[in-house]
């Protein structure tokens, strides 16, 4: 077991008074945003139930699902590797990179590669790995690790980021504005992207029936990092497997809302096989796609208290909500994944039996988990395992169970202690547990009353049956709605049907798009400077508009003021546009211009993700649901548009 002392680390973390206040407040703010988001989803509870069941179901035939995934992915031209542990995964990635002579690698946010220590492994072999997610980029520059699995730099203030960037010459000294800091990082990272020889990503979901890896993100760095370099390596835990697109629809509805309070993240991208293999991709350069499926202790979790955590979709909300995490921060856990989910995964996967004690077992995490993992229950059960295996102590005075198990002796004994109050009090105050409880005099021990409740009961005069007994009663039957915890919000009505009228769908789309930071525009608003992809030019021509052909070489696209492309359809409830890139000259076109204009025929509008996936035929090599411009909130949770991709997204609905 590690030498790390979580008790000391927490105590140390708490000493930074101002930091604790800021961190706690920031995450509390996030909680509020999330609550508002799920309040708009009447079927939230039903979704949680389904998600919990479907993740459990896939594990019942885990190896079958894995084999299915492998078959489909390989048929689409991907190379599938299985890694038993971190070392194997690192070696596989290293070998693939070596085969291509790739020395400059861009990596998008992936907790799995953090878990493997992939960066360190590759750096030691002369490969430069740059984390391109803004939060991870900052953390990497500081030589730290992410403190939160969704917002890796939430522990840092804008001043700290500003100082770092100034020191590295990325921004002017004294700069603390999140927007300007973000744009400084964007500038630096754009060069890294253009020079990258391989892109590594994680995956949020692996679709067994489709052989697809699905990545959700807000910044567009992942899509960019897989669009420019010729090699794309996906490193994902086998717990990311789900059956297929129906399950994906359920999980996507939960993930972003729970993680960030968004209806869906900016880019939800699925990859099936390498670019250049799809029927509509003739002419695109051929690429390679590798998928590394990592076990690293995941199979071993089955049959332990950690098993339910294999359902986790890494929304990170249990960290955000946790009253302990909010006060001590992720680094105090010294674990790849901190917070409640880390306490459940840590013992089984990394032998971190010290983590389960770092909880007040308040149960908030269990209540809010979008896939209904009973995190507090699992933490409780891990404590028992830890003690049974002599990996942790209970922290209770010895013989407590013995004393409490002999009630009469206990009552007699405590009566004796009362009678010898002064002496026994002095002795009890020396008891290590009670001494610790006082936290050096910060907290007073309770006064011991002269008589215990039982001793009173023994001699008490029975209360006369009063008027109370005849007062009118009003027994209340609590409904499930009454019993909901505050964090769950009011219990919503039954599952809503899709709005019947096209106008209602349009209203929903407009609202969702605005929420995501996109803008509904008229075709006449299209500036002359905007260039257009092939299919978009054809459509514009029908409306009597002509635009120049958009470039497709990345270096020509970089800095382009505006680009106009064609989206297949819209999803009203999430405000998304579906791009399958079939008629685009390159995926990078969607990201490298300063502003993106998407044309979409009016009739092409579906209600929600279920309808979206139902409408979709076989998944394209790469398809993405774009929702708003590229954005980030990695510096003090301030939303900044244009993290990597377009700063503005204009949607033009054409008849």
């Amino acid at each position, binding site marked *: 077991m590690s030498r790390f002392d979580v008790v000391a680390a*927490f105590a140390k973390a*708490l000493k930074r008074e101002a930091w*604790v206040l800021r961190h706690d407040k920031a995450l*509390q703010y996030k909680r509020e945003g999330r609550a508002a988001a799920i309040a708009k989803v009447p079927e939230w509870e039903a979704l949680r139930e389904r998600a919990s069941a479907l993740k459990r179901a896939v594990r019942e035939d885990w190896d079958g699902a894995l084999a299915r995934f492998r078959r489909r992915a390989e048929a689409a031209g991907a190379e599938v590797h299985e890694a038993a542990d971190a070392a194997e995964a690192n070696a596989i990635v290293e070998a693939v990179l070596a085969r291509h002579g790739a020395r400059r690698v861009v990596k998008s946010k992936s907790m799995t590669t953090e878990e493997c220590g992939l960066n360190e492994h590759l750096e030691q072999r002369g490969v430069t790995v740059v984390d391109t997610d803004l939060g991870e980029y900052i953390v990497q520059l500081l030589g730290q690790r992410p403190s939160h699995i969704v917002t890796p730099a939430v522990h840092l203030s804008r001043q700290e980021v500003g100082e770092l960037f100034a020191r590295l010459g990325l921004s002017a000294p004294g700069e603390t504005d999140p927007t300007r800091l973000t744009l400084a990082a964007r500038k630096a990272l754009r060069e890294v992207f253009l020079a990258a020889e391989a892109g590594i990503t994680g995956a949020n979901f692996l679709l067994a029936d489709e052989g697809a890896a699905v990545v959700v993100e807000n910044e567009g760095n992942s899509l960019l990092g897989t669009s420019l370099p010729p090699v794309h390596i996906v490193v994902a835990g086998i717990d990311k497997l789900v059956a297929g697109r129906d399950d994906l629809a359920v999980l996507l509805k939960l993930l972003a809302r729970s993680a960030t309070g968004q209806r869906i993240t900016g880019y939800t991208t699925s990859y099936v096989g390498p670019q250049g293999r799809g029927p509509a991709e003739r002419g695109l350069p051929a690429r390679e796609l590798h998928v590394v499926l990592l076990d690293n202790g995941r199979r071993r979790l089955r049959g332990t208290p950690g098993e339910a955590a294999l359902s986790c979709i890494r929304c990170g909300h249990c960290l955000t909500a946790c*009253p*302990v995490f909010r006060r001590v921060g992720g680094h105090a856990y010294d674990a790849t994944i901190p917070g409640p989910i880390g306490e459940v995964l840590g013992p089984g996967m990394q032998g971190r039996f010290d983590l389960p*004690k*770092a909880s*007040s*077992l*308040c*149960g*908030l995490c*269990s*209540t809010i988990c979008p896939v209904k993992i009973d995190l507090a229950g699992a933490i*409780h059960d891990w*404590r*028992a395992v830890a*003690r*049974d295996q002599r990996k942790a102590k*209970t922290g209770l005075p010895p013989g*407590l*169970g013995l004393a*409490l*198990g002999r*009630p*009469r002796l*206990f*009552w007699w004994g*405590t009566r004796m202690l009362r009678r010898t109050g002064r002496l026994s009090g002095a002795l009890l105050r020396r008891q290590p547990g009670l001494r610790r*409880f006082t*936290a050096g005099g*910060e*907290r*007073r021990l*309770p006064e*011991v*009353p002269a008589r*215990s*409740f*039982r*001793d*009173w*009961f023994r*001699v*008490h*005069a029975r*209360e006369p*049956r009063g*008027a*109370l*007994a005849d007062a*009118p*009663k009003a*027994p*209340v039957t*609590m409904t499930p709605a009454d*019993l909901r*915890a*505050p964090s769950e919000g009011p219990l919503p009505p039954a599952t809503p049907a899709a709005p019947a009228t096209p106008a209602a769908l349009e209203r929903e789309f407009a609202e969702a798009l605005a929420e995501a930071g996109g803008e509904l525009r008229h075709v006449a608003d299209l500036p002359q400077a905007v260039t257009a992809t092939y299919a978009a030019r054809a459509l514009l021509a029908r409306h009597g508009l002509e635009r120049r052909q958009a470039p497709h070489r990345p270096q020509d696209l970089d800095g382009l003021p505006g680009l106009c492309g064609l989206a297949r359809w819209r999803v009203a409830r999430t405000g998304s546009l579906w791009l399958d890139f079939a008629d685009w000259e390159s995926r990078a076109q969607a990201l490298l211009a300063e502003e993106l204009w998407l044309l979409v025929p009016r009739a092409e509008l579906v209600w929600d993700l279920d309808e979206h996936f139902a409408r979709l035929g076989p998944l394209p090599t790469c398809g993405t649901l774009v929702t708003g411009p590229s954005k980030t909130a990695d510096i003090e949770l301030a939303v900044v548009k244009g993290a990597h991709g377009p700063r503005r997204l204009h949607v033009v609905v054409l008849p």
Partner: protein
Amino acid sequence: MPPRLSLVIPVYNGGPYLAESLAAAWAWLEAWPQGTELVVVEDGSGDGSRAIIEGFEAGLPGAARARVQVLVNDGNRGKGYSVRRGMLAARGDLRVYLDADLAFPLDNLPRLVAALEAGADVVLSSRTHPDSEYLVRCDQVGYAKRRHFMGRVFNWLVRALVVDGFGDTQAGQKGLTAAACARLFPDVRLERFAFDVELLWLARGARPAHRGGAGPVLVPRGADDRALLRRHGADVPRPVPRAPARAPGPRRRRGAGRRARGAMSRLALFAPCFVDQLWPEAGVAAVRLLEALGHEVALGEAACCGQVLGNAGDRREADRLRRLWAGAHAAFDEVVVLGASCLGDLRAGLGGGGPRLSEFCEWMLEHGPARFPKPLRERVAVHQSCSSLHETRTAAHLRALLGRVDGLEPHYPARVDECCGFGGSFASTFAELSVRMGRDKLADLGVVPGPDTDAGSAATAPPARVVSADCSCLLHLRGLAPAGARFVHVAELLAEAAL
């Protein structure tokens, strides 16, 4: 004409079943073919037994009332005193005294009387008689065995030191003739425990006199009590005598609770170990409320549900304590638990079966008044414990209950579901963090100014008190609050509004 048979019942804190016992004894006497009399000695009970006895007497027809003597001791004088007083005041030729809880069944009496009729001066029931059997609930076998063993040890000492020949001197059911009473009882000096031994010792000393003439015979001797009881027991088919099923509540004389048995719904209150020891006011208020509502309340003989051990990882001890808890409450129909965290653990650990478990607020909402009679005009800050929010979901009941008190202004903190930082062993393992969380909670409750409180502004006044349904949180918060801050369990608040 003096009655032929007197039954003497000493009563001390007779508890919920006293009325039932008296009625049963009276019914038995009514059915007896000869003249009978009932003598009840009230030994300064503190629990309303006297009212029950008086109620019983008042309920009898006028003629029958003449056959009942109620003697009231000035204060609690002890069982020995009471028995002596009753046996001497009785007028029957044959006098039998028995425990008020009817621990020895009434259908054993014909054999005792038969033995007296046959010429014995003193007859005693015995639990060591070969025909004797214990009727004991299976989960109480261990208890009964221990008790029996202790009884044997005592008996061995008695036989070795005082008086030999009796298998069981302590059984609370003995019969004497009027003559034996007059001769023996005036000399009984012991007024409490072991007066029986003294009685038998006196009887033994007087034996030569008893042997002669009309042949008062001290029955058990040599072949001990068995021979005679067997002789006279022959015409009664069922085995003699037997101890009844014991409800697992504490025994009346030693434990704090009262025997719970009989047909009516049996209700126990469980005040968790920390309430029992450190916040008795909550238990007291709960008992008073339940009793004022007309319910009989008993306490099960368990100190702790085991949650504290389970939460800290000691699964085996936690399971053991939970089993003990279940055994101690198995005879009840319903247990009201004073606190959500223990209840949550019990519900999760026990699964189905056993008594119905209710959190105090749940129970009060169902059985309590729709409005509490007295208004409480004050602003209270409400702390909803995490277990009540996330586990038992009884926070809703707390909120509803507070709404039934007129004038009360509940103030809910902004972070309504924030943990106060107690968390059992967490509070001492991560003491600094626990203290920090507690201080934040106090600030949010308005008890102390928080980091965001604007010192200059006239913010809303601090609450008069903080109320919660969980004393564990309250104990921790009280330890952190300034000296003047007041914390109450919801039962205390409701008792103020009700009584």
